[in-house]
């Protein structure tokens, strides 16, 4: 550190890299979260850099590093505690906006998924579903408009509904 105080960048680089395992051990002893502990180590390095003129070379450097890292780790824990006290989990608040129209996101997503699933059906099933279920036509009228027999229309509608139930995960709920 005495060399670093005199401006020797290579000595400073060697010193900081040699101190890294010590600083990580000190920070992780205080903070269980890996990323938070690494942030505390970085805070400690910045403080060491800012206070390098304060260090007295006649004294051991290890307690100096440890004290600074401990202080930065405690600061991190305090900041995290304050942040946690101010925040609420969004999971508890499904409705985020005051107007009812603004909270229809999930319904819109479901409608898009249904339209996509219908579009992927074979043409015969899609036509049968549209006439027999969506337009709710009598089977004879649907048969006349589609050109399919009543039996084929019933089978195609049944298969279309089954395919949609499978694709949209409804069968998992049964």
């Amino acid at each position, binding site marked *: 550190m005495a060399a670093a*105080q005199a401006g020797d960048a290579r000595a400073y680089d060697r010193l*900081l890299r040699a101190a*890294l395992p010590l600083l990580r051990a000190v920070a992780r002893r205080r903070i269980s979260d890996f990323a938070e502990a690494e942030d505390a180590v970085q805070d400690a390095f*910045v*403080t060491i850099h*800012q206070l390098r003129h304060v260090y007295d070379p006649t004294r051991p450097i290890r307690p100096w590093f*440890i004290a*600074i890292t401990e*202080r930065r780790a405690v600061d991190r824990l305090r900041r995290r505690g304050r942040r946690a006290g101010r925040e609420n989990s969004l999971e508890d608040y499904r409705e985020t906006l005051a107007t009812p129209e603004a909270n229809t996101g999930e319904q819109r997503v479901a409608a898009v998924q249904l339209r996509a699933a219908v579009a992927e059906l074979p043409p015969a099933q899609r036509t049968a579903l549209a006439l027999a279920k969506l337009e709710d036509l009598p089977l004879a009228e649907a048969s006349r408009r589609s050109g399919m027999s009543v039996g084929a229309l019933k089978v195609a509608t049944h298969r279309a509904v089954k395919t949609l139930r499978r694709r949209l995960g409804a069968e998992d709920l049964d």
Partner: protein
Amino acid sequence: MNTESLIAELVSGLAPVRRLPSPGVQAARWLALAICCAALAAVSQSLIMSGRFNLRIGLPMNNAQAALSLLTGIGAVWAAAFLAHPERSGRWLLLPLVPLAAWLGFLGWHWAADVARLGDVALKPGMDWACVTTILAVGLPLAAVQYRALRHGGAVRPVAVLLLGALAAAALCSTATSLVHPVRLAATILTWHGAAAAMLMLLGLVLGRALLQRPRFA
């Protein structure tokens, strides 16, 4: 940014730095300045109040409490200088607490003795604006000078440095004013010198942070 990159960045911008003097030297320098300023303030106060300089050391109670406040001030500046260094023990905090407790205990004991001797009169503290204004007017700039000298303490123990710096300034100013303006009732000293010291510590805590070095992070 990962830690290795941070180290590389810190190393790349390295410039030589001038090493700070030891905490003992820093404390001694401030103490010399503070004693000069407090003495000048006391002389001015004496001249304003009586038209001539009067060093009044006739009251043993006053002398004893002035000595204890001086010890408190010396202990506080010494502790602040050492606590501003990260690796120094937190037990330095005890150094001014011992004379401070003795100072307050001594005044409390004298207050009880005054009450026993004089009755209800001793319960009412007299006004002592001269001492309060001297302690605040001289103590505040002295505390500011100390905060500037110990600004590195802001990155490690800011609250201790701020409180002890203000306590040191208040205690030394209290000593100086006591020697030119002796007060016979302990209640007056305890109330007004105590209030001035508490106010100075509060101001130091609120305003002094701006003078300390704050840790800036990447």
